[in-house]
């Protein structure tokens, strides 16, 4: 299940289940969104991106959904594996005068139980 701890929200799933990680973004003018995965002791790593003119994009085992009406992103991971255990961040890119300074969300910790 999903819980909000003292720090990161945590999602615990069983291996083989599908996972859904949610993200609320702040700027309705943001035109580009990226999901990153951060494993322990490493920097964030790109997973998938989506532009604001799309509402869905699929990758290998991952799907990103964008709902601009409620400023919400979700990352769906199919057949979750232990190697998917990590912290997942969404990042939005507001078009700030052409500088495109990205902003990271708080992150969700995904724990996959074998």
């Amino acid at each position, binding site marked *: 299940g999903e819980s909000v701890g003292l720090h990161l929200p945590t999602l615990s799933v069983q291996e083989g289940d599908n996972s859904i990680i949610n993200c609320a973004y702040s700027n309705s003018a943001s035109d*580009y969104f990226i999901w990153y995965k951060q494993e322990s002791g*490493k920097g964030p790593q790109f997973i998938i*991106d989506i532009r604001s003119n799309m509402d869905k994009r699929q990758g290998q085992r991952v799907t990103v959904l964008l709902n601009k009406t409620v400023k919400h992103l979700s990352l769906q991971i199919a057949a979750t594996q232990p190697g998917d255990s990590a912290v997942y961040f969404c990042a939005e890119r507001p078009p700030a005068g052409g500088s495109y*300074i*990205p902003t*990271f*969300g*708080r992150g969700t910790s995904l724990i996959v139980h074998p």
Partner: protein
Amino acid sequence: EAGVAQSPRYKIIEKRQSVAFWCNPISGHATLYWYQQILGQGPKLLIQFQNNGVVDDSQLPKDRFSAERLKGVDSTLKIQPAKLEDSAVYLCASSLEPGNIQYFGAGTRLSVL
């Protein structure tokens, strides 16, 4: 393709001491970012360079933090003097263009005692 290189990986200092971090971005990436990541939080942008110019440093504590990218390639981030609350992982990232997919280094974990 070589990734973003950062050094050192770990650093332990006492408060009021100085420390410097180094970053070598992916070749050809014009945009370089320095982030501070406190345990349990997302990366917080400290400074963004486009080539050797500063695009944004609004969240950089300029009384103690400084960064430079003199030749538009490597960058250094310095803290002088360090405070206890500076304990964090300092991440460097680069991208081809501003706001595009960022490639991160492994980070430098700083502990200030």
